[in-house]
């Protein structure tokens, strides 16, 4: 049981400092925490030396491979720094401030849904939202341009999703099999 509370050499003030820094990043994380990965790398690897660059990259790669929100890489970083309590510190830090802001703004929006400003906000941001989705798809596809088979999977997935109502899991499984054995 004591392994659960082993801080890997950090002391309690450092653990609080870790949570506090991620809480600060949380407020800045417009567009998701992955946009702040370079700042996290600077803080954990360069400034404090709590983990090395390879551990940092592994945490991101593992979180990308796992199902679920990408934010979990932050938890994995905390785990590499200071075990389970480290994970709790970074995840709580990155989640709580932004979630509280979202909660309050979401309620305000519901309460004033007929106000002109609120409607203009919804209507005016819709095209931006769709543009950001296109940008994300593009950025995810970019590292694959040299792999023909991977590049074929992108349009194949688009057609599958637009033409059928089947679960995306079929395409994800196909992508894994083709990637592993198709020389992608």
């Amino acid at each position, binding site marked *: 049981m004591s392994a659960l509370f082993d801080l890997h050499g950090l002391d309690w003030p450092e653990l609080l400092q870790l949570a506090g820094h991620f809480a600060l990043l*949380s407020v800045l994380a*417009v*567009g998701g*925490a992955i946009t702040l990965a370079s700042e996290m790398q600077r803080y954990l690897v360069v400034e404090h030396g709590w983990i090395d660059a390879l551990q940092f990259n*592994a*945490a991101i790669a593992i979180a990308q491979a*796992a*199902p*679920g*929100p*990408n*934010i*979990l890489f932050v938890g994995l970083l905390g*785990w590499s720094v200071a075990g389970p309590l480290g994970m709790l510190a970074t995840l709580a830090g990155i989640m709580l*401030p*932004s*979630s509280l*802001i979202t*909660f309050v703004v*979401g309620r305000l929006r519901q309460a004033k849904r007929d106000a*002109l400003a609120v*409607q*203009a*906000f919804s*209507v*005016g*941001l*819709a*095209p*931006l*939202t*769709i*543009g*950001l*989705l296109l940008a*994300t*798809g*593009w950025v*995810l596809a970019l*590292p*694959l341009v040299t792999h023909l*088979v*991977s*590049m074929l*999977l*992108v349009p*194949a*997935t*688009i057609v599958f*999703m*637009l033409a059928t109502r089947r*679960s*995306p*899991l079929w395409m*994800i499984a196909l*992508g894994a099999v083709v*990637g*592993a*054995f198709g*020389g992608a």
Partner: protein
Amino acid sequence: MSVLPDPRDPPNRAEPELRAPRSKTDLFVAFTWLALQGFGGVLGVAQHELVERLRWLNKEQFVELLSLSQVLPGPNVINLSLMFGDRHFGWRGALAAVAGMLAAPLVIVLALALLYAQFSSVPQVAGALRGMGAVASGLIFATAFKLAPTLKRSPMGLWPCVAIALASATAIGLLRWPLVWVVLALGVTGFAWAWHRLAALRRAR
């Protein structure tokens, strides 16, 4: 079967009736299942599950929640789950949805971290990850294409919408400009134009 709504259809006929989550458990289970399908990102799956399979939101409502989620700090899909849960069951609903989104995937991530050290050098593992990454990209594109037709009904008019969507896609995707500035500039532009158009519509009524 085409997913693009036919503009000649009256809006009611094209959209099946919406449903709602029955309980907080219902929310928790739905968001867990949704998160567990999200390899390389949950957004594409969220659209499929919430709009097409469960029919808890229509496309317009989904875009609206997503828009708000994107401009607020924090992960988009978490913000979206939180606000959706709150609308149905208050703060307990928000907790249930976010817990569903995080709990099971967190256990899997930790298990994978233990396995990773042993298998990261196997080429098939790297290949499978790359293939799944390609599918994740396709899922996001498909989500954009499915939601884009909602812009046809926008009070802003189709062409201003297309201009803003393409400008933001170019600035972020191709030019890699910092997200905050792009969202501020194009968000304020869209907001101002929508305000202008909606105010004109209200005066006309």
